[in-house]
Every structure is written in structure tokens, then in C-alpha cells.
């Protein structure tokens, strides 16, 4: 029987890049890792409840913290690293002519027009939404747009609202924005307007696959990081 | 002519045909079980569509294949006492009795609610649901419902089969009065020779 690759639980927004990394790894003669993409929250809860998986690549540190603190120690000590970074982009439909310079007090509300909505991940829960709100607060425009936010269940849904022209503006990760030709990046939020956006990777204590550690190291290797950079992520 | 019937209908692989003209009064439809009596009544009531032929009552054409006439059941004005009663299970006995009564034009009504309740002995049952009625009680409600609908003619399919002799006698007397005083055409299915001989002016045999 063909040995199975390690089971990797990963945030849905990493789908293309991680698949590319897995392909490269497999091309080097390893069994291809099995990738399960879902919301970081769902994956973290699965781990907390004893999921038999090998690696966890989360879209935010909070959920990784949660798993680390879970009773019974769900993470192998010393295997957690912050693998990737990302930045926040303000986007508009491709055909939109909106021009804005992101700076403290910039006229975001006016740019939304009379009825326009600002599409984001839900600010209470979706990581991209949380970062977005933080940035808008730092730039002192949050109070003017707070009532205008349409909170989507994922970054991708927020982006769909913009690319379909339902919302004139939206906030998503820079990596998402560059993957969709129907949206245009209006500007990138200054890195100091929000906490660093990082994607932590760790190996689970339930991990039994002999290839798990190897694949984790591969992802953290220069070769692995190069793949992610090709999709617009930053690395450390 | 009260009833002019010349019809045929296909039931499964069987063909049921009937042809008769009846004068005023009560016409008895006689025939063995399965001969097609109910089928004929259904065709006259407009519940089954004859393959061909013609049906008229009191000179009024209800169905005429050649002339393209096919009145809808509600336009035919028949008071049909069904062999299987067909009481409305979600209404009280009173609701059943008044169903056709409410729909009849006031001047088409020829019998009172109280009258019907009295001679059918339904006074104690008005609030009851059909489900708990005895066989004979249900049959009496079915008769009352048809009489109260202000019908221009009656179709009665073994209307007294589940009743005791005394009730039977009483109801037959009412039917006779309807026949004599109102001159309503009545088509009457029964297996009881004596009943038929007493009531009916003419007998149609089916086979």
C-alpha cells in the first residue's frame, strides 16, 4: 500500500499556495500530504477535540494560542513557528474609478457614497475583519464607517461582494486581492496600522505520520517559503 | 321526460352502457351488483364523463357529446346520495347538512333544515363528527345533505340500505311527498323489490 502523506489542517485562504507546496514536496519523492481546508476556528476546535491530524497552519495566532492552551497539550512543544505574513488591501471593483490614499483620516466614508457598503470579514470573528477594524481605528476612520460594514463569513465572500459590484469597497488580504482579476487594489494599509498578520504553523501531539516533521521543515525552508512568496505572502 | 339518458363509458376493460327515458316521478334503477348503476349516476351528476351520448333532465341537456355540452357538476343541480355517503370528515353533522344549503339560491330551497333534522332523527347528532356516527346515522346525514342542497333532481344510490324498517318507512313517506308535491325527478337505485315497487313509477333494468 502507498504510504499516506501527513494530514495538514490549514486555513482556507492558503488553498492555492499550500497545494503548490504539497505538489513540490511530492515531486521530491514523498507521499503527497493530505490537505484539509476550512475556517481556522473550525480546525482549531477539531484539534481541541482530538482530531487525528499532523500539522495545523492557522490564519491567526489567537486560534493557535487556543489550541496550545487546550487541556492535554494538543501541540508538540517547540514545533510552533510563525510561517507567513500578509498585508491588508483596500479593494474596489476592477472597473471602479475610486482613488484613495490610505492615511490617517482618509475620506473612506465619502468614497462609499450614499448607500455603499464596506465589505469585510466579520469584524468580530474573521481574522481579516479583525485586522481591518484595527487598522481603521488606528487611522481614525472606523467610527465613520462602522455602520456601513457588511460582514462576510470569509475573506473570499467579502471579495465576492466587491467583485460583483455589490459593495464599492472592501478590505481583504493582499494575497486574495491579487488572485482575483475582477477587483483592483486601491491601496495597502500601512503595516503599523494593525498587529502583524502572521500565520502560525505547528505539529500536533497526535501526529503519527513519519513524514509530518519533514513536511513542516520543508514549509519553513527557503524553498518552501519561496513558494508562498510567489503567491504574495511575506515570510520571516 | 324527466330523465333522458343514452350514454356509455369504459371502465377498465368493460363498457357500461345505459339507455332509457323516464316519465315524471321516481325511476328505479335496478340491476345486479356491478352492473353499472353507480356509474350511470356518476355520469348524470357530472362526476364521470361518458365516452359518448346524451343526458337530459326535465328537458335540460346536461351532457351532449354531439352538441359539445358538458355542464360542470355544480351547474347540474343534482342532489346525490352517495352509496358510500362521502360525508365531510372535518365538519360536524350540521356543517355537512348545511354545506349545499348555503350554496343554494334561497328560492331554490324546497325543504327546511329543521324539517330534515326532524324526520331523519338527527337532532341529537348535529354537533357530532361523521367519524363517530353509526352506519345508519351516516346514511341519514347523507340523505339530508342531498335534500337540503336545493337540487332540481335527486340521485339516490341505495339510500336506505342501512336503515331499520321504521326509519325506512318514515323516509320513504318523505320521498313520496317530494315526488308528489314537488314533482322532482328522482333516480333511485335499490335492491329491494318492495321498496322499488312502492316508490317507483317505472323501473329501468341494467345488465
Amino acid at each position, binding site marked *: 500500500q502507498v504510504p499516506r502523506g501527513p494530514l495538514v489542517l490549514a486555513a482556507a485562504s492558503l488553498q492555492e499556495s499550500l497545494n503548490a507546496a504539497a505538489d513540490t514536496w511530492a515531486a521530491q519523492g514523498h507521499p503527497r500530504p493530505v490537505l484539509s481546508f476550512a*475556517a481556522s476556528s473550525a480546525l482549531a476546535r477539531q484539534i481541541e477535540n482530538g482530531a487525528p491530524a499532523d500539522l495545523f497552519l492557522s490564519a491567526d495566532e*489567537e*486560534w493557535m494560542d487556543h489550541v496550545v492552551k487546550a487541556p492535554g497539550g494538543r501541540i508538540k512543544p517547540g514545533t510552533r513557528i510563525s510561517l507567513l505574513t500578509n498585508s491588508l488591501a483596500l479593494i474596489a471593483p476592477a472597473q471602479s474609478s475610486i482613488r484613495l490614499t490610505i492615511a490617517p483620516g482618509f475620506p473612506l466614508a465619502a468614497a462609499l457614497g450614499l448607500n455603499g457598503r464596506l465589505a469585510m470579514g466579520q469584524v468580530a470573528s474573521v481574522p481579516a475583519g479583525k485586522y481591518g477594524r484595527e487598522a481603521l481605528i488606528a487611522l481614525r476612520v472606523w467610527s465613520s464607517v462602522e455602520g456601513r460594514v457588511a*460582514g462576510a*463569513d470569509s475573506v473570499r*465572500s467579502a471579495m465576492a461582494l466587491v467583485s*460583483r459590484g455589490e459593495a464599492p469597497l472592501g478590505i481583504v488580504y493582499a494575497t486574495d486581492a491579487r488572485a482575483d482579476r475582477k477587483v483592483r487594489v486601491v491601496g495597502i494599509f500601512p503595516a503599523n496600522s494593525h498587529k502583524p498578520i502572521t500565520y502560525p504553523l505547528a505539529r500536533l501531539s497526535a501526529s503519527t505520520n513519519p513524514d509530518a516533521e519533514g513536511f513542516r521543515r520543508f514549509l519553513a525552508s527557503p524553498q518552501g517559503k519561496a513558494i508562498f512568496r510567489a503567491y504574495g505572502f511575506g515570510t520571516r | 321526460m324527466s330523465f333522458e339518458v343514452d350514454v356509455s363509458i369504459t371502465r377498465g376493460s368493460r363498457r357500461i352502457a345505459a339507455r332509457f327515458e323516464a316519465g315524471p316521478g321516481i325511476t328505479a334503477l335496478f340491476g345486479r351488483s356491478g352492473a353499472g348503476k353507480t356509474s350511470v349516476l356518476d355520469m348524470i351528476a357530472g362526476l364521470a364523463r361518458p365516452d359518448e351520448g346524451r343526458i337530459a333532465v326535465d328537458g335540460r341537456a346536461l351532457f351532449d357529446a354531439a352538441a359539445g355540452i358538458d355542464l360542470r357538476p355544480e351547474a347540474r343541480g343534482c342532489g346525490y346520495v352517495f352509496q358510500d355517503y*362521502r360525508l*365531510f370528515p372535518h365538519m360536524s353533522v350540521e356543517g355537512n347538512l348545511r354545506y*349545499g344549503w348555503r350554496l343554494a339560491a334561497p328560492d331554490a330551497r324546497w325543504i327546511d333544515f329543521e324539517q330534515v333534522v326532524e324526520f331523519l332523527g338527527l337532532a341529537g347528532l348535529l354537533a357530532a363528527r361523521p367519524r363517530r356516527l353509526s352506519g345508519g346515522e351516516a346514511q341519514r346525514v347523507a340523505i339530508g345533505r342531498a335534500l337540503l342542497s336545493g337540487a332540481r333532481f335527486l340521485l339516490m344510490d341505495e339510500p336506505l340500505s342501512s336503515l331499520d324498517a321504521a326509519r325506512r318507512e318514515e323516509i320513504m313517506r318523505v320521498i313520496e311527498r317530494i315526488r308528489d308535491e314537488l314533482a322532482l325527478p328522482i333516480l333511485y337505485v335499490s335492491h329491494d323489490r318492495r321498496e322499488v315497487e312502492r316508490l317507483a313509477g317505472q323501473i329501468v333494468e341494467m345488465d
Partner: protein
Amino acid sequence: MALAPDNISPEEWGIIWLSLKVSAAAMVATLPVGFALAWALARGRFPGRVLLDGLVHLPLVLPPVVTGWLLLIVFGGTGVAGRWLAAMGMPVMFRWTGAALAASVMALPLMVRAIRLSLESVDRRLEAAARTLGASPMRVFVTITLPLALPGVLAGMVLGFARSLGEFGATITFVSNIPGETQTLPLAIYAALQVPGQEGIVTRLALISVGLSLVALVASEVLTRRMGMRAHVL
């Protein structure tokens, strides 16, 4: 008790009220459409019946996000139906009416099935009897068919209401999560589930949902009982 009314915050009351409004509107709006479809499927003999049946089941078979996505395309601000509704003064995009529309679409197949099941068990001979008593087809429908199919209609309403109360995927995809406008209970629950350590809030809101649906259930049982709908044809 954690769920005593004075323990529920004004914000939560707002969410409860919105959920009830959305679910009730969805149920009421779906009913005539659902009944008409059930009728066509139970009684109609027309080409494309199976196709219509399939179409009705669509929201059940497709993942809710896809349904939401299709709604977005058709009823969004740039969609055909969306522009038409907006022009009629009834915009649905980002509105509670949109949430009701999503819930309505998701509830439709359940309602249609229940009503259809009851319609198919109505004894046609009773309808025929009513016709001979002078009732027009329309009146037969109102006085005979509809009351006899009532158990199915009620069951369909309960299913539709419950489904609407729980509807999440299509709603958030279509009209997103806007507090006070489209944030129904499931959306609030989902938001809380995505934040570590908010299990308490999740449980609270879920219990409220369950409470609301229990009230609806009991009401429907009482109605069914009162109407004595378990009776059979003699």
C-alpha cells in the same frame, strides 16, 4: 437561570426580534408559493413536472453558500431581479428582506414536500361530492381540500419556520452579516463560534433559538389538535 428575560441584553433582544421577523416573513411569503408548487406537483400532469420537482429541491441539494451565491447573482444590486425589486421600492440587498428571501428559498422544498404529501392523501371523492352540492372548484378548494390538507400545511409551516430560524449559509453569503439589519441568531452564533472562548455566548444564543422553535412547535401541535385533523373519512 441564565436565560431569564432580564438577563438578555438589549442587543440580544434585537437579534431575537430580527430573527423572528425574518423567519415569520419567510414562512408567510413561502406559504402561497409552496402551496401552489405542492398543488402543481400533486395534481398537475404536465410536461416538465419532474424538472419542476427537481428545481424545488435545489436549495436542499446545493450547499447553502451556493444558493446564497446564486441569490446574489439574481437578486443582487446588479442582478435582473434585484434591480427590478429595487425599482419597485423593495430592495433586498443588505436588507432584512434579503435575509427573509434567503430563508424563504431554503425553506421552500421542505414546505412543498409536506403540503404535497397531505394533498396527495386528500380523498378526491369528497371533492366530487362537494361539486355536486353546488361548490365551484375554488370553493371546493377552500372548504374541502385545504382543510383536509391542513396537517401538511401546518407541518410545512413548522418545518419552514424552523429551517428559517437556523438558516445561515445562504443568508451570510447573500446579504452578509450586518448587525440590526441581517444579523439573525445563526449569524450571531457563527460569529461567536469563530472567536476563541465565546462558547458561553454560543450556548446562550443556541438555547434561545431552541426556545423559539419549541414555542412554534407547541403552537402547531395545539392547532392541529384543536382542528381535530386526525379524523378520517368514514
